[in-house]
C-alpha cells in the first residue's frame, strides 16, 4: 500500500478547490446552453455574420462615402448603360445615379430595424396571448379552458390566412410605410409565438414540480409566472431568432411589392431589389447585391437559431 505524500495531497486539494470554485455561483440552464452554443461552429458562423451585420447597420450610416439619396452620377447614365464598379463607386451606380454601396450600408440598418421590431411585436403580442391561453388551459379549471378556446380560435383565424396575404391586407389597411411593414410582418408571426408558448406551457403544467408547488399551497398565478413560464421560454426564444430571418425576408417581399417605405432618402434592400429588376440585363449586380444581403443575414439568424434550438433542447443534452 502506498502512502500519498503530503505534497501530492496538497496539490490534489488545491485542484479540487479550483474545480469547486468554478460552479460556486451556480450554473443556470441558460449559462449551460450558452456554453454549448460557443462550442458549435455553425452557431459561431451565424454569430459572426450577425455581429458584422449589426456593426454595419449601427455604425455604417455614419461612415458612408455619399448620401444614399444623392444622385451625383445622374449625367453619366445613358440608355443601356449604368456606371459599374469603380474606385469612387465600389458597388457601382444605380438607375438614377445614386451610389449603390452607400445605399446597401444604409439599407442594412432599415433591414435590421424592420426585422427586430417586427419580431418584437410578434413576440410580445404572441407571448401575451399564448401565455394567457397556456396558463388558463394548463392551470385554470373549466373557465380556463373557455378562455383558452376563445383565444386559440382567434389565433387559428390568423393562422388560416396565408402569411403574405395577411401582411398585404394589413399593409393595405394601414397604408404603405415602414411602420406598416413592421406591424404587418409582426402580425404574421403572432400565431406562431402564441401557439408555441401555449403548447409548451400546457406541457409544463403537467410536470412534477408544478404538482409539488401546488402541494405546498403556492397560488396559481405565482405558479404560472415563476414555474411554468420560465420553463416554457426556450422554444419561444429559439423561434424568435428564426423569425428574425423570415421577418427580414418578408419585409423585403413587402417592400418589393411596393408596400414598404417609399422615401428615397431611406433605402431598403427589398425596395432596391424591386427597383433593380428592370435593369437586371444591363446591371445584374443591382439585384444580386441586395439579394445577397438578405440571404446572408437570414442565413446568419437561421444558423444561430438552429444552434440555439440544439443547445436548449433537453433531449439533445448529454
Amino acid at each position, binding site marked *: 500500500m502506498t502512502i500519498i505524500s503530503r505534497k501530492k495531497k496538497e496539490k490534489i486539494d488545491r485542484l479540487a478547490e479550483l474545480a469547486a470554485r468554478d*460552479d*460556486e*455561483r*451556480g*450554473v*443556470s*440552464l*441558460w449559462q449551460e446552453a450558452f456554453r454549448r452554443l460557443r462550442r458549435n461552429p455553425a452557431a459561431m458562423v451565424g454569430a459572426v455574420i450577425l455581429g458584422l451585420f449589426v456593426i454595419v447597420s449601427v455604425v455604417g450610416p455614419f461612415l458612408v462615402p455619399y448620401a444614399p439619396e444623392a444622385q451625383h452620377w445622374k449625367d453619366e447614365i445613358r440608355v443601356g448603360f449604368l456606371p459599374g464598379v469603380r474606385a469612387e463607386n465600389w458597388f457601382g451606380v444605380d438607375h438614377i445615379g445614386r451610389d449603390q454601396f452607400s445605399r446597401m450600408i444604409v439599407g442594412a440598418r432599415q433591414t435590421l430595424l424592420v426585422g427586430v421590431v417586427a419580431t418584437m411585436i410578434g413576440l410580445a403580442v404572441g407571448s401575451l396571448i399564448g401565455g394567457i391561453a397556456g396558463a388558463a388551459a394548463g392551470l385554470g*379549471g373549466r373557465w380556463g379552458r373557455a378562455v383558452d378556446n376563445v383565444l386559440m380560435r382567434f389565433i387559428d383565424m390568423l393562422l388560416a390566412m396565408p402569411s403574405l396575404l395577411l401582411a398585404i391586407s394589413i399593409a393595405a389597411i394601414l397604408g404603405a410605410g415602414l411602420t406598416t411593414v413592421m406591424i404587418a410582418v409582426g402580425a404574421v408571426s403572432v400565431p406562431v409565438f402564441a401557439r408555441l408558448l401555449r403548447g409548451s406551457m400546457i406541457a409544463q403544467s*403537467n*410536470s*412534477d*414540480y408544478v*404538482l*409539488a*408547488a*401546488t*402541494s*405546498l*399551497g*403556492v*397560488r396559481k398565478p*405565482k405558479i404560472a409566472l*415563476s*414555474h411554468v413560464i*420560465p*420553463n416554457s421560454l426556450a422554444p419561444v426564444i429559439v423561434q424568435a431568432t428564426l423569425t428574425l430571418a423570415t421577418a427580414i425576408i418578408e419585409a423585403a417581399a413587402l417592400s418589393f411589392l411596393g408596400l414598404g417605405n417609399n422615401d428615397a432618402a431611406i433605402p431598403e434592400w427589398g425596395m432596391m431589389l424591386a427597383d433593380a429588376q428592370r435593369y437586371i440585363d444591363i446591371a445584374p449586380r443591382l439585384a444580386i447585391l441586395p439579394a445577397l444581403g438578405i440571404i446572408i443575414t437570414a442565413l446568419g439568424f437561421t444558423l444561430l437559431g438552429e444552434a440555439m434550438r440544439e443547445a436548449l433542447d433537453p433531449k439533445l443534452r448529454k
Partner: protein
Amino acid sequence: MALLEVDDLSVTFARRNQRAVHAVDGVSFSVDAGEVVGLVGESGCGKSVTSLAIMGLLPKQPGLRVGGKAVFDGTDLLQLDDRSRRDIRGRDIAMIFQDPLSSLNPVIPIGLQVTEVLTRHRGMKGDAAAKEAAQLLDRVGIPDPKRRLKEYPHQLSGGMRQRALIAMAVACQPRLLIADEPTTALDVTIQAQILELLKDLVRDSGTALVMITHDLGVVAGMCDTINVLYGGRVVETARRRPLFREPRHPYTVGLLGSVPRLDAGRGEKLNPIPGSVRDLLPWADGCAFAPRCTRRVDACVGQPPELVLAHDGRSYRCVNPAPVPGLTPAEAAPVTVAGAADVPVADEPPAPAAGPVPAPREEEKP
C-alpha cells in the same frame, strides 16, 4: 380524535365507453399526531391516488369522482373549496414526492423554491426568508446551505435534492406529512439517510407521517401502523410487529415471502406472488386478490370479503386468513401492545371457508 381520519375514501375514473376504474375503493385509515402510518402495496394498488385525493391534487378531469371523507383536524378535506385547500397545503399538510429531480423546478435556484413557501405561508421576505431557508437546509442536513441556496437542482446530488424537497415540505412545520415513495429514486445508502432524517423530523416536531411505499424494509424501519393495500382497498391493517410476525392476509404473507432475506439458506428460492395485478376482480364480485391467492376457497368469489377485526386492533379482509405461524396465545402476548384488551384469540386457528367473523372493535393506546 385522530389527526387525520380517512373514511371510506373512493376514487373512480370514469371513461367514455369503458368500464370505470375504481382506483381507490373504500379505503379507511387514521393517523394520530406523531404517528407514522404506512400505506404499502405494489404498483397500481392505489397508494398514490389515495394521497393525491387527500391533498386534492388529482387532476380535475371529467369522469373523476372522489367519495368518502378525509377529516383532518375536524374539517373534511374533500369538501373544502380551492382557496382554503390551498391555505392548508404546505402549511398544515405537506407532501414529499417520489422523484426529487422532476419535483424541483430546473430553471430556478433551490433557494427561491424554498423561500417561495416561506413567503406564501409565513409572509417572510428578502433577507429574513433567505436566512430561514438556509436554516431549513441546514436542518435537513445540507452542508454549506448558503451556497446551496444559489444552486440549481441539477447541481445537487439525488439525496441532496430530496433533502431540499423535504426542507420545503417542513418549512411551515406542518402537522401532517405525506411522503409518497420518498426513497424510491435514491440508492440504498442515501435511502437510509433520508429515512433517518424523516424519523428525526417526526420525533422532534411531533409531525404525523403517512409513508407510502412498496418497500417493506422501509416500512419495517419506520412505521407504527401499517395498512396493506391491494386493488384499491385496505386488505390488512396492523401495528408493525404483529404484521411482520404474523401476517394474516395471504397477500401480506406473499409480500413478506417475496422479500429476499439475508438469513435465507443458500440456493433457497424467493417465493413470488403468482400472476400480476392485471387479473384483478372487481371487488363487488369477491376478493380482488382471489385470482392470485394460494389460499383461495369458494367463499372468496361471490361477495366482497368483509373487514375482519382481530385482537389488538388489527384487521384484515379475508375469509381464509393465513394461520398464525406456530404461536400459542401465550407467546403472542408480548407482541401485543400494552393495554390491548385480552379478548380470547378465537379466530387464530385456520378456519377454511369460514364466513366473516365479526369481532368487537378494540381500543388501542400506543
